């Protein structure tokens, strides 16, 4: 479907209802396409989105240590074991 910015102001609720059922809504301004509203595929909740964003951030910023050393988790565990008796 196509909606002008002006009509979208009064028909937003109807538009979103149709998008939820699978339609796509193109937004026009002065006869030009400027945006598109599409149904959410996945994630389905704000919590899912938050979790996915978090994991993307973690993967993107993962530190690459020097490969000659043993992994940090192992170093930490070794240190712990030294303290256990």
């Amino acid at each position, binding site marked *: 479907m196509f909606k002008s910015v002006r009509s979208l102001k009064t028909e937003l609720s109807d538009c979103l209802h149709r998008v939820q059922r699978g339609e796509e809504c193109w937004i026009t301004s002065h006869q030009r396409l400027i945006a598109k509203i599409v149904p959410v595929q996945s994630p389905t909740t704000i919590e899912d989105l938050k979790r996915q964003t978090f994991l993307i951030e973690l993967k993107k910023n993962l530190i690459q240590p020097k490969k000659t050393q043993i*992994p940090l988790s192992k170093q930490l565990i070794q240190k712990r074991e030294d303290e256990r008796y």
Partner: protein
Amino acid sequence: MKLYLDTSVLVSCYVSEMQTEFVFKKLENMHQTLLVSQLAEVEFVSALSMKHRMQGISTQQKNIALNFFQQHLDMGYYTKAYLTDETYLLAKQMLQITTLKLRILDALHLALSKMLSATLFTADMLLAEAAKKLSVAYDMPIA
């Protein structure tokens, strides 16, 4: 469901290693609250500083990891788990079981996990074994 992140797992979320992949897989597949205690926060800083001292990561890398971890705490990606009088009391009881060979921090991690009815997610085999003996739910980052 709540997942209590032990420092041995938390460090591999920020510094790449073999188990990182398994940790991420676990976090991807589970819809649960990620708990991080004040103890883990302090241990995390200590572990990164140790790695830096041993020249495994640069000063810049250490600072980046610490900043991201703090940002993730501030943004609420983790839920903070706080120590209470009851936590210390339960830890004290756990430390009396001499066969477990627990450190003070081990007992506090275990007590917090138990009190919060959370699953302890750890890469530390001895901590996992103690959890099993104390009927604390646990999980490990293995394939």
